[in-house]
């Protein structure tokens, strides 16, 4: 991959979010399990901060990664701002409970700030005027503005540490960015929003950002590809989830490509690893290509 010079202010550093699972990468069959909590929580606090992770999925559903990151960071004790645009709160809550984390409890103690996109949109369109005078985070839908500044302000106020409660490192999680395009935001506005978030979250607050961009196999959506590719050039870690090229299989749900940026300032090659995975009720098993349990 050729080097792309960028104007980001985040310093590139070697490392990976999946530190807990990286040790297992060398052997097949490691699990991104909901039960293996201790290794994950210790490493999240110790791992380098200020990273931007891009989750891409084409032709299949990559939201299991979002669930993983959400429970991972909550268990690690980080303050999480979750912009959930596609599903309702109860969906994420039920899945998180299977992975061992309660979102309602996290929200109550202030560790999780949850923006439920569907509900917020309904309030904007059908609700009465905001009593507090604050604009709705999804104000761009109503067409009054074309930029996502209101959404950025929401993220900034939720992650800026205001009180004495000390959480380790802020995290911004977005599921998923393609919905913003469907709702009428221009690709440039979406990229601006992410850029502003990175300045605040990654460099100022030394936090991490994880963003999901959903695509499809035929890649007919140009705006979506533009956003995905552009963010890919600026990411420290890309997790690309695809369905199998040969079609549907019961035992192997898809392939995941892990692309690690070793350094954005040098011309070293990125580290690329490919695994196949199978999603189960409470965890996901990864294995090397062709070595699924069904075959062995």
């Amino acid at each position, binding site marked *: 991959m050729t080097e792309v010079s960028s104007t980001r202010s985040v310093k590139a550093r070697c490392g990976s979010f999946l530190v807990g699972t990286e040790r297992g990468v060398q052997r097949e069959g490691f699990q991104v399990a909901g039960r293996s909590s201790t290794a994950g929580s210790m490493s999240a606090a110790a791992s380098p901060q200020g990273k931007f992770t891009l989750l891409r999925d084409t032709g299949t559903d990559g939201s*299991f990664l979002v669930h993983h990151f959400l429970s991972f960071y909550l268990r690690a004790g980080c303050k999480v701002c979750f912009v959930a645009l596609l599903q309702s709160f109860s969906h994420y809550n039920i899945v998180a409970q299977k992975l061992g984390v309660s979102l309602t409890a996290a929200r109550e103690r202030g560790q999780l700030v949850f923006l439920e996109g569907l509900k917020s949109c309904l309030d904007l369109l059908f609700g009465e005027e905001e009593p507090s005078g604050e604009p709705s985070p999804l104000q761009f839908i109503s*067409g009054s503005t074309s930029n996502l500044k209101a959404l950025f302000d929401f993220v900034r106020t939720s992650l800026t540490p205001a009180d004495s409660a000390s959480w380790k490192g802020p995290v911004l999680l977005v599921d998923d960015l393609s*919905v913003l395009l469907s709702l009428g935001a221009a690709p440039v506005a979406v990229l601006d929003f992410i850029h502003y978030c990175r300045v605040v979250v990654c460099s100022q607050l030394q936090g991490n950002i994880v963003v999901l961009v959903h695509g499809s196999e035929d890649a007919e959506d140009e705006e*979506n590809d533009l956003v995905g590719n552009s963010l890919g050039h600026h990411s420290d870690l890309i997790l690309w989830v695809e369905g199998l090229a040969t079609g*549907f299989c019961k035992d192997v749900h898809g392939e995941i490509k892990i692309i690690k940026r070793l350094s954005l300032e040098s011309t070293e090659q990125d580290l690329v690893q490919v695994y196949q995975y199978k*999603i189960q009720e409470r965890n996901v098993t990864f294995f090397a290509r062709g070595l699924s349990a069904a075959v062995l």
Partner: protein
Amino acid sequence: AEGVVCGHDLFVASAMEPPDNILKVKTHRRGKDILIDHNYLEIASPTTSTKFGHYYDISKTMSPELLQSIKWHSFYLPEELSLEPKLKMCNMNCGYANLLHSIQRVIYQEGFDGSHPQKKQKNILRIGIQSLGSLLWGDDICSSDTPEDIHSLTKFLYVLRGLLRKSLSACIITVPSHLIQNKAIMERVTNLSDMVVGLESFIGSERETNPLYKDYHGLLHVHQIPRLNSLICDVSDTKDLAFRLKRKQFTIEWVQDNYLRQERNIYPPGFSYLLKQKDSAWGEGSLQHSTFLMSFLAKAPALASRLVRHSEPLKQTGSGRIRQTAELRMWCYGHRQEAPGLLVIST
């Protein structure tokens, strides 16, 4: 129809014909309650003995008494537009904005979103929207490659998704996807939906002559199934579903079943005998049988054309052909000419 029989409330929206017509056609309940013959539904509830679904006779209309027993709301676009032509909502198409307001009003007033807790009985609202995205709703994504407002439909679907998530309702929408030129829109629509099913008709396509599809009218593609409240993102198991529409029945079947049923017509005569033998090495399930089937399937298209020609009955004998021409000539000018016995031989 399902909604009426289960006693759920209905909301029918259309821009094409008055919703009353939609409700009248298509539904007449038959005697017994039996499982609907979908492979998909069978997988969903394999061992429970609860009755799911009903049989309907689609050649008759539903009796008015049954319709009156439930509450139903209708939305007919031409009427609604005449009442409120200027309704605007976040730069959305006027028709969609009206529909959203109407749905939200019904949900709120009837308490489907829990806003009237004193209501004792909880009911479900079934919403049906016909031909969304077509020209009749005022959207031009079906008629032009670069439509004026490509976000109207997706915005509508997003707000509808929000309404459905926070209330006890379910919605089914039909979209004329064969008319939508812009593939990106279809991708976004699929992403915003929970379940996506596509119907592909055989009319006018080359599959009509394929003997595999002899008894069917089209294919059913399940593009996406709901993945709510679960980590698993499975895809539907069966991939070869086809449907057939008879006078009283709409059936969906796995194509392989029909193929295996027809085997005695398709296999060359000698082989048929071998396969039918009891305890034969060629019986179903044997290795020889499977390898034969596989190689046969590979050659199926070539054999299909041969079969089609062979299966046509011999229509004409020599004299018949001449008789036909003579009849045509006799009625040529709209009235019967004299001398019917004369043979007219065309030159």
